[in-house]
């Protein structure tokens, strides 16, 4: 089974589980750190997700990233034009900045798709998503955007350790930095601290799925 097939299967299972728990609409908060163990025991700030081998190859990691980038790009592509977001605390147009975010996610989708193809892999395609709640209000849109970006950072940070090619690792680093910039900005728009902790929180694929899963239709 390919990584995206497995991912979608897990999304489906996760949806059923969350649905049973009545959590489908309330799962934007970051999952707890149950699967995260201390890897450097006397430095509690440094955490490496201890996962079963989530990824068998660099291609698996890239398709995992592409799955999340598709989700992000579709979210902004279909939603940025729905609202007039006004002006941010810097005096900049929020619509303009969100359009830039959209374009970044689109560029990430293209880059990852091309890279996977060049490496002989099969890039995962865009799926059908459910952003009904997110698109219901400005606040819902911004909160969802912030959740997606902050989760994206954690997803890359959790998966990077499985990359074996130095060039791909650097490329992933240059994308996750942009996701972190987006997250900082969206936190700010949400009236939250742009940089809430001194370290990011790496998440396993299962933890990411718990957050992103409900958006898959």
């Amino acid at each position, binding site marked *: 089974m390919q990584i995206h097939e497995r991912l979608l299967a897990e999304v489906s299972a996760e949806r059923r589980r969350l649905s049973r728990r009545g959590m489908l609409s309330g799962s934007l908060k970051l999952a707890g750190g149950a699967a995260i163990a201390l890897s450097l025991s006397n430095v509690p700030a440094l955490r490496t997700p201890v996962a079963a081998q989530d990824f068998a190859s660099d291609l698996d990691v890239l398709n995992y990233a592409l799955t999340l980038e598709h989700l992000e790009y579709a979210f902004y592509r279909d939603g940025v034009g729905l609202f007039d977001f006004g002006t941010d605390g810097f005096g900049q147009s929020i619509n303009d*900045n969100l359009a*830039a975010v959209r374009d970044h996610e689109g560029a990430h989708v293209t880059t990852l798709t091309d890279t996977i193809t060049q490496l002989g892999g099969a890039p995962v395609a865009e799926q059908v998503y459910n952003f009904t709640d997110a698109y219901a209000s400005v606040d819902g849109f911004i909160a969802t955007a912030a959740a997606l970006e902050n989760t994206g950072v954690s997803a890359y940070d959790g998966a990077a350790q499985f990359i074996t090619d130095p060039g791909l690792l650097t490329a992933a680093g240059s994308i996750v930095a*942009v996701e972190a910039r987006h997250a900082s900005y969206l936190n700010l728009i949400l009236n939250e601290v742009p940089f809430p902790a001194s370290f*990011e929180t790496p998440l396993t694929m299962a933890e990411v799925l718990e957050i992103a899963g409900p958006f898959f239709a």
Partner: protein
Amino acid sequence: MTIRAQTTFEEPVDVLNYALTLEHLEYSFYRDGLEQFAEEDFVDAGYAAVVHEYFGAIRDHELEHVETLTTVITDLGGEPVEEAEYDFGYTDIAGFIGVAQALENTGVSAYQGAAQFLIDEDALLTAALTIHGVEARHAAYLNGLNGASPFPDAVNPTLTPDEVLAIAGPFIVS
């Protein structure tokens, strides 16, 4: 001078000392700047009071990065580099905020360029990336504060140690 002109690292601990060199630079910059400029100075210069608060948060992050890297380097049997003497050349708050923007954006690119040298050290790589992301959050905020785009590129630029040295070196007096 603790940043050596080089494009590679021999050992993981060398990568961490490179990161620590930059974190010392950043922490001392915020520590000393915030001793010089109080909240009312930020407000008098036209910034919201929360900007001063956020600068305090950034300073605290850099201190945690310094302390964490120092601990890890020591645990690995290495010798952590110490804080140097710096001259950041600013004379007012606007200048201070401008230097902050340059330091943070350089920091992001520096971690990004060095991460590949930790590719065989999963825990250290992950730790470095969790710092890298926070530097990127700082950089986005400081860009916005200086009237620039918080995220000017779809792909964040990567810098080699040599390139970082060219940018950060002039701040290091001894």
